[in-house]
């Protein structure tokens, strides 16, 4: 952490978004994480993504649980809604919030401990319900807040700062989400904002559950030689499969793409994702082939990144439940609470 907050002064040439705001307007308090933490870069990428999308701050809800990762919503978009829940319970709290107000954009920030150990059941069921949210896992392979014990995502053979190497199978959030039917699955790296920002934009705008698993090195407990989640290791074994450009509904596709290398995909809200296919043989619409590819690259020691799976057709939670279009929070009280007489009638139907 630093003793001074980030000075309010800014570059006079800073670009403005459609709301007339600059990226500085999307910042939060100054980070209290360790200097060099990958999570701070993820925070910066989220700020950039939300700024570029022009999301009104009061229409964003940032949700989290417990852990270093879960501290980070404090560090972006101060003017938005937020909920810092019990450890591992961010998915259910978000499910509840989303049920009450489907108009907000939800971003949940979690870590490998919060999502893959204590909260793994919650994580799994949020995917199953296809809650419309962007679910970020800041994945560093250790419990940073409790001094660096291995987490459930630590790779076999990865060495801790002190003690024995890990020998338990890691839980891979991407493969898990794939098997559970998540509809937008991506992986990236905190040190690669060029790839990460468009992936976050796509995830925020995707209708349904969007997972972005981000290798985010713990600079204090897991950035040494022998670690498989260090800056150096990640850079060395980093493998781009499909990068994307995210293009908003009103904007035209400006960038030039070589023929056969780019594929535009229209999303549910009218925006476009242009797939920049780094590996032409990869099919991101097939769960089976994605799964096989991931395992193969994993066994080769590579970290597969990019947009790895996309399904725009599956219904999200509200559609599955047949809910009204209007957020519950905006329905008149009489409609939401018809009174004790109506309740008695309802109960009588089950007697």
């Amino acid at each position, binding site marked *: 952490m630093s003793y001074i907050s*980030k000075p309010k*002064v800014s570059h006079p040439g800073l670009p403005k978004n459609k709301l007339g705001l600059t990226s500085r307007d999307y910042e939060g308090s100054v980070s209290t994480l360790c200097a060099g933490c990958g999570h701070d870069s993820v925070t910066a990428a989220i700020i950039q993504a939300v700024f570029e999308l022009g999301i009104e701050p009061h229409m964003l809800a940032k949700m989290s649980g417990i852990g270093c990762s879960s501290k980070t919503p404090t560090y972006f978009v101060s003017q938005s809604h937020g909920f810092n829940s019990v450890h591992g319970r961010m998915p259910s709290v978000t499910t509840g919030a989303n049920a009450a107000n489907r108009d907000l954009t939800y971003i949940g920030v979690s870590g490998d401990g919060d999502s893959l150990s204590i909260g793994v059941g919650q994580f799994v069921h949020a995917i199953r319900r296809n809650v419309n949210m962007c679910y970020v896992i800041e994945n560093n392979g250790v419990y940073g807040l409790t001094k660096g014990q291995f987490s459930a995502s630590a790779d076999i053979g990865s060495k801790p700062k002190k003690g024995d190497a890990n020998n338990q199978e890691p839980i891979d959030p991407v493969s898990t989400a794939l098997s559970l039917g998540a509809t937008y699955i991506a992986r990236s790296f905190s*040190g690669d904002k060029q790839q990460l920002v468009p992936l976050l934009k796509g995830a925020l705008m995707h209708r349904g559950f969007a997972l972005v698993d981000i290798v985010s090195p713990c600079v204090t407990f897991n950035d040494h030689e022998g670690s498989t989640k260090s800056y150096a290791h990640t850079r060395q074994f980093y493998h781009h499969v499909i990068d994307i450009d995210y293009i908003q509904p009103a904007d035209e596709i400006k960038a030039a793409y070589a023929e056969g290398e780019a594929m535009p995909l229209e999303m549910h809200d009218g925006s476009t994702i242009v797939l920049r296919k780094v590996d032409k043989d990869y099919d991101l619409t097939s769960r089976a082939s994605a799964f096989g590819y991931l395992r193969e690259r994993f066994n080769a020691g590579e970290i597969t990144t990019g947009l790895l799976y996309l399904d725009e057709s599956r219904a999200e939670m509200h559609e599955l439940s047949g809910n009204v279009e209007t957020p519950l929070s905006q329905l008149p009280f009489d409609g939401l609470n018809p009174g004790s007489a109506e309740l008695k009638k309802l109960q009588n139907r089950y007697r």
Partner: protein
Amino acid sequence: MKPTDTTDPEYFHKVVDCQWGCPAHTDVPAYIRMIAQGDFSAAYMENRKSNVFPGILGRVCDRPCEPACRRGRVEEKPVAICRLKRVAADHRDDISDQLPQAPEVSNGKKVALIGAGCASLTVANDLAPLGYEVTIFEALQTTGGLMRTNIPQFRLPPKVLDEEIGYILDMNVDLKLNHPIGSLKALLAEDYDAVFVGTGAPRGKNLEIPGRYDSDRIHIGIDWLESVAFEHIKEIGKRVLIIGVGNTAMDCCRTSLRIGADDVKVMARKPRGFFKASEWELEDAEEENVEILINHSPKEFVIEDGKLIGMKFELMEYNVDENGRIDRGTVTGEKIIPCDDVVLAIGQDNAFPWIERDIGIEFNDWDCPVVNETTMMCDRDGVFFGGDSAFGPKNIIWAVEHGHQAAISIHRYCQGESVADRLPNGLNLASQKMGMHEWSFSNDYDGSERGLMAHVDLKERFKKIDIEVELGFTAEQAAREVERCLNCDIQTVFTADLCIECDACLDICPVNCLTITQDGEEDDLRTRLAAPAENHDQALYVSAGLPHTGRVMVKDEDLCVHCSLCAERCPTGAWDMQKSKILVPYAKDELPDDQPLPAAGSGS
């Protein structure tokens, strides 16, 4: 690009925009920090080292540092550097024991300085402590040159002049007042080892239009100001026209108001924006209800019965092109403006009637001596020029710098060494880290606005000619103003080998001046940065290739506010905040290391 060579003193010097912009390279951020710490005497001495006259310049400097100040790029107004200089001078303790003194024994070399203005005095200041026997010849009955004769007392009190000039004269300098030099040839025939000419640009420009010589109420600005300063002129008519709109014009109009005028108009040939006067001098004059009339070109003096009754002007209209250049204008009419006196303040020229043209000094097309811009020496060995007499009218701070450079040359010349062979600038870098998040300086950005100088009440100030109008900053104002300084001399120093490319510095930088990207040519690189780098005068810092990816760290120095956050957020210490001290050589630094400054004389 080639990785930036930060061992070259000029690189970091250029980042300190105020110091770079100052002709004498005053270490501005250093003295501002001394003021912040309440050490006014140290701040004064830091100033004195380079600009010699902090009390004088703290009031009347042309302030090239302020338009250069980086603060003016991130918000509206620069730091009030000049006012802070005066704060240091006003609040200093007795510093006489810290001043250089003349040694007991001379080094046997004699130097003649012509004119007792800022240029000659600077030469004396630099050479007397080295043991030179310095003689100053002054035509007038007092010292200071144009600083005393042309700057009115309500801007620069004589006490301030006397004190700071006294410091120099006390170094056993032989001052000969009322001693005009009528012939340089004759002076050169005497046994001086070197001669320095610091006679200024003493001839006010005339306006040769009809009626010019038909009245005695038409005055040449600088001569008139001098007569007022020496109390030869004590009054002026009620209605005064000042011709010209430079800083001398501002002094003329404000002086008029103090000796009898109540309707003063400054007549400008061109529109605002093409005025030569500094913005703040215009403001001060307008505050005193001086009217500035634009687009009036003088045509003739209107004389009736041998008496000046007004002046006829042509009314002008101009076109300004897209590059901001103005055309010669067209006349749209004429107008007579009544007046009792006219003061001409349209510039000044050099004049050397006392320099013979056959003594080996080459004169150029403007009848000025040809002077080397580095050594200040003319074609005749051993004769040096400085101040306005060297390259025409500039300002005090330039004259001081000329004096420093001439002193180095004179020393080298007298020691039989080449004057062209000079010491380069040096550089010292020292980390300012005091703890995990602690720095030796006040690194947080202070959003305060520039302090406004309080002035003496508009009625009160006209009662006497020598009431100083500016009151100086209060303690509270000074304390606030020093915090506005961005400490540009505390550099962000990068060690590429240590970088793990975690982006922490990029993410925290409030002004987006850092980028990690693929290397490229400068024009290309400038388009790929986190924020537009449009000031091509400010260099980009480019690191060597980074260990993980071979990309480079690029820093656009232009808008950095030196908040230290990049260094605080860096997990590996690749960024550090280091104070750069630019070691500017003076004459005393030419002495060999084993021969320190001669001991001060006991009685002096």
